């Protein structure tokens, strides 16, 4: 994934500062609680939500099982409709293809629809290295780009910013990128939106190349679908002469009928809307309407490896709705940046270590960035059992035996031995109970020290239960 995340510290280290940042925690708490409550209401309106969820899960599972077939179908349909299909094995290859395609147009500026795939590949930085400037046009992405920041949420990339911070960014940075912010800009939402609108309108009318991702690709017709709230995406998808779409291979669905299911699941799960305001669909090129040239870049970048894992592959069902982020108590406190990836929150904790592997400190720590409370699984519109995958990935990390895990493995084995020998366990329990007056209040050693920093240990009982039972019932 993006080079900007290389060398990230592990999740607990990255989360430490976020937990203590009062402004950040306030911003996150307000935003996530608002969206999660609205989502719960929007979902409760449908009495067949459970069946829709099951249908979404099955369609995705079926498609993933026959991905080879559906991808070839997409390629044939897109080609027949006048588009060109390119296959990219990894981020570098995808960026090279897009860079070449832009260079062939002779342009040095592109406008972009919000796209997770191009963030995953670090496309903007790759284009910049070749003298091509990419303008993000999604409002929240614009805030992140102007602020030289990183996105921290799938749907609301600037969720960690409040209105005052956004006004300051607009005032100081907009002139660097194009039309400056209006004089005397305040932090009222209408004024901020108008400032962004004027700034972006200039770019839409000038751009000759647009770059997008897609929420879905319909195999039977080669149709791509983008679902959005602002309409900026539709500008990027219809005004330029050349459109380049970079799409993860797992985004394919077989038919238009299947789309019906996801267009119900996605908006309610993500924005708590019954239907999103803009759904743009395009199929190759059409004479006299829309872009003259269309390129589809199909991105693998770790997806085939993920598909090979029987438990972990369910992460590829994800439709990027972000419901799991909004309900996650860990995300709410640690913030999106601590996850060290464009995919934060619970889904990021299972997706990133699969797409990138678990060699780095951040990726090895992500499967542990959860209390396994299960709220993410409850809200997932395609029923990804995130806790199950987390535990499965913990096993992989523990098996590779990196920092801290060798000692842990020995401790776990010792615990199992003790628990498999009740006589020894009972002796240990009795000894602990007999010496209970001698135990210090704060304990040394890793684990125990962490625990007793903020919590008292329970008083040890005078006798373990099994001794009570022996005396009173046996």
């Amino acid at each position, binding site marked *: 994934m993006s080079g900007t995340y290389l060398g990230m510290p592990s999740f607990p280290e990255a*989360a430490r500062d976020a937990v203590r940042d009062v402004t950040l925690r306030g911003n996150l708490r307000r935003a996530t609680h608002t969206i999660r409550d609205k989502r719960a209401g929007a979902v409760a309106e449908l009495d067949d939500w459970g069946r829709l969820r099951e249908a979404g899960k099955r369609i995705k599972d079926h498609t993933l099982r026959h991905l080879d077939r559906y991808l070839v179908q997409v390629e044939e349909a897109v080609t027949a409709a006048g588009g060109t299909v390119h296959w990219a094995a990894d981020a570098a290859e995808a960026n090279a293809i897009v860079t070449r395609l832009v260079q062939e147009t002779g342009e040095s500026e592109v406008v972009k629809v919000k796209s997770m795939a191009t963030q995953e590949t670090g496309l903007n930085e790759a284009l910049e290295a070749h003298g091509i400037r990419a303008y993000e046009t999604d409002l929240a992405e614009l805030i992140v780009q102007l602020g030289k920041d990183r996105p921290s949420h799938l749907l609301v990339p600037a969720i960690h910013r409040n209105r005052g911070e956004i006004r300051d960014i607009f005032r100081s940075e907009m002139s660097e990128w194009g039309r400056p912010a209006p004089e005397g800009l305040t932090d009222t939402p209408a004024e901020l939106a108008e400032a962004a609108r004027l700034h972006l309108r200039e770019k839409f009318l000038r751009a000759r190349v647009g770059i997008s991702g897609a929420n879905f690709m319909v195999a039977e017709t080669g149709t791509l679908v983008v679902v959005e709230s602002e309409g900026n995406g539709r500008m990027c998808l219809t005004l330029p002469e050349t459109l380049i779409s970079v799409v993860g291979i797992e985004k394919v669905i077989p038919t238009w009928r299947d789309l019906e299911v996801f267009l119900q699941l996605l908006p309610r799960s993500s924005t708590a809307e019954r239907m999103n305001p803009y759904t743009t669909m395009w199929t190759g090129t059409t004479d006299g309407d829309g872009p003259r040239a269309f390129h589809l870049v199909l991105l693998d970048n770790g997806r085939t490896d993920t598909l090979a894992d029987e438990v972990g592959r369910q992460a590829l069902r994800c439709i990027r709705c972000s419901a799991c982020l909004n309900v996650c108590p860990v995300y709410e406190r640690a913030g999106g940046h601590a996850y060290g990836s464009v995919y934060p929150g619970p889904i990021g904790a299972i997706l990133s270590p699969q797409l990138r592997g678990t060699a780095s400190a951040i990726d090895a720590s992500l499967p542990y960035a959860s209390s396994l409370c299960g*709220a993410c699984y409850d809200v997932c519109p395609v029923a990804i059992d995130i806790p199950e995958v987390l535990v499965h990935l913990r096993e992989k990390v523990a098996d590779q035996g990196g920092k801290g895990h060798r000692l842990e493995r020995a401790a776990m084995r010792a*615990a199992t031995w003790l628990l498999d020998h009740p006589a020894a366990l009972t002796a240990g329990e009795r000894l602990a109970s007999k010496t209970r007056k001698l135990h210090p209040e704060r304990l040394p050693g890793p684990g125990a020290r962490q625990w007793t920093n903020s919590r008292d240990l329970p008083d040890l009982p005078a006798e373990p239960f099994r001794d*009570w039972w022996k005396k009173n019932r046996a």
Partner: protein
Amino acid sequence: MRVALFATCVNDALYPSTAVATVKVLERLGVEVDFPAEQTCCGQPQYNTGYRRATEPLVRRTARAFAGYDHVVTPSGSCVAMVRDNYPRIGAKALAEGRGRELSGAAASLVPKTYELTEFLVDVLGVTDVGAYFPHTVTYHPSCHGLRMLGLGDRPRRLLEAVRGLELVELPGAEECCGFGGTFAVKNADVSEAMGDDKIRNALSTDADVLCGADNSCLMHIGGMLRRQDAPLRALHLAEILASTEEEPLR
């Protein structure tokens, strides 16, 4: 009816009063309780930390300990969730790795007969009034495993509402995780503390005397924070409230 008590390792070693209370409530309702002494731990700490293979001896041991019983009852939602959700997975993975059918059979045998205490009382015995008396203001924290994995629903509340003298008050943000999560509390201590802080702030806002739960692992975390802060609220397991009577009241 004869049932086996699965006390769990946390209750055996740290909270024997919860296991004793469970025995008393069940006996009061005419149930004959047994405690098979070969039982120890369900293996949840190992499994959830990523040491699946280290869990296997404990799956076998647990299955063996309860082999002769139709009903296994435990005052711990998270241990029931471990048996119900994860034992079949452990069995299936062992089979896939070619380690015989014994483990998979042992794992499967426990699933249909293992009950969390409130499930057993409400669903199997058909009781909500267990004859308890506890004249205090109580707020209830539904642990994640009981709430989401087992779907205990309003069973614990119905039992509490039937306790004489007890006033049940709503816990704001009740469905949010308290931040324990087993080894999560150690590996991600800062986030765990932040979650625990919010939980006890909500609990204190209720002005209750007692924060009640059905999982001593969560209560150890919440109760430990309450004690460190000298808060005027004690954490108490649901079984101990249900065991309290006018003749033998819990203090």
